[in-house]
């Protein structure tokens, strides 16, 4: 399953890093603006919110960018190693990313983060596979034999018992006469 909607692999790392940074900055801006407004004194709520955004939103963005970079780099390394792109790549790279990012906290934290990363990415991949399957249903080719003829006159005279049920055919006409 090749990816055509994203950048090819070495550049995907940069792209994902930037996307994650933007996501973190935008989300962090919203979150820290509200938090700053809530925490500031009454006279300077707007300024407090703005200051909170300028100090904290880049931190959130940086954390997201770290995650995106590590994830994408591992993903691309796995693509190069295994020679295929499938959900297992994403799941493994989620685990590796969790482990790498909590490297300084010791082995227990690494293991915990790795498990969380694996489960999270497995959920995401599962949902995306389910969405693809659901949206692929409408493109399923239908055999011409199964299709209804579009012109009803092609059907010919209906069988007697069946047609009376739908209010058509010769038997119904006889009844009304």
């Amino acid at each position, binding site marked *: 399953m090749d990816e055509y909607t994203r950048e090819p692999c070495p*550049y995907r790392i*940069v792209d*994902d890093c*930037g*996307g994650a*940074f933007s996501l973190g900055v935008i989300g962090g801006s919203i979150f820290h603006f509200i938090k700053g407004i809530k925490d500031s004194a009454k006279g300077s709520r707007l300024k407090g919110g703005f200051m909170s955004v*300028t100090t904290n939103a*880049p931190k959130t963005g*940086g954390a997201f*960018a770290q995650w995106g970079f590590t994830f994408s780099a591992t993903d691309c390394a796995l693509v190069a190693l295994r020679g295929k792109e499938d959900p297992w790549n994403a799941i493994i790279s989620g685990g590796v990313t969790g482990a790498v990012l909590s490297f300084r906290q010791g082995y227990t934290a690494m293991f915990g983060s790795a498990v969380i990363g694996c489960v999270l990415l497995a959920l995401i991949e599962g949902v995306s596979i389910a969405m693809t399957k659901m949206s692929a249903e409408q493109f399923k080719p239908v055999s011409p034999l199964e299709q209804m003829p579009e012109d009803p006159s092609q059907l010919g005279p209906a069988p007697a018992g069946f047609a009376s049920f739908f209010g058509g055919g010769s038997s119904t006409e006889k009844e009304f006469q």
Partner: protein
Amino acid sequence: MMTDDRRGGQLFGGGLFAPNVPSSPGGPSYPQYFNLDPSYMTPGSEFIVPEGAQQTRGRFELAFLQIGSSVMAGCVLGSIGGVVSNREILRSGEKHLKTTFSNIVFNNGGKWGKKCGVVAFLYSGVGTLFGLARQHLLSQDDDGINTMTAATTTGVLYSLPQALKHSGLKPVAKHLCRGGLVGAVAGVVILGSEYFIGFNTKGRRAWYY
């Protein structure tokens, strides 16, 4: 006649036969015995793109690439700068050398990565929004005006938190003007690099085409 033409081998000369190539006045001139439909050679679209898609990438498609490369470049340069500026500490034979080294790298790399990323984020965001507004309201194309506006606005916005720490209109305006000036100079540098080096910052051929 066609076979004769092909065997003749005279690419540009020979007025023996009338040109078999439909030519329009003012259009590009082709060799007389050109055995190819010149409509294939019209400059412009070389690639088949889906209907409704643009021939070149816009600012938004390139924004993530720009932001990501800025973050990564800032990280690398910041880490190197941190190591260089703290080289005395690292040389002093400290006990926890590994921890010190990784702390220096992570702190400085993170700091500069964030700074560069925020600048690129502001530049890309302002450029995209301004370009969209110009396209939809004035139906003008993306060009150097967008780059200059985005760069100047980025400078002003980046210096806004520093300016708001001062009180009074004059210091604030001074800070904002300084930031805008730095941004405008950066915009000129971007445009100049596009013009002179052909450095492609927007994913399109160049702003002057």
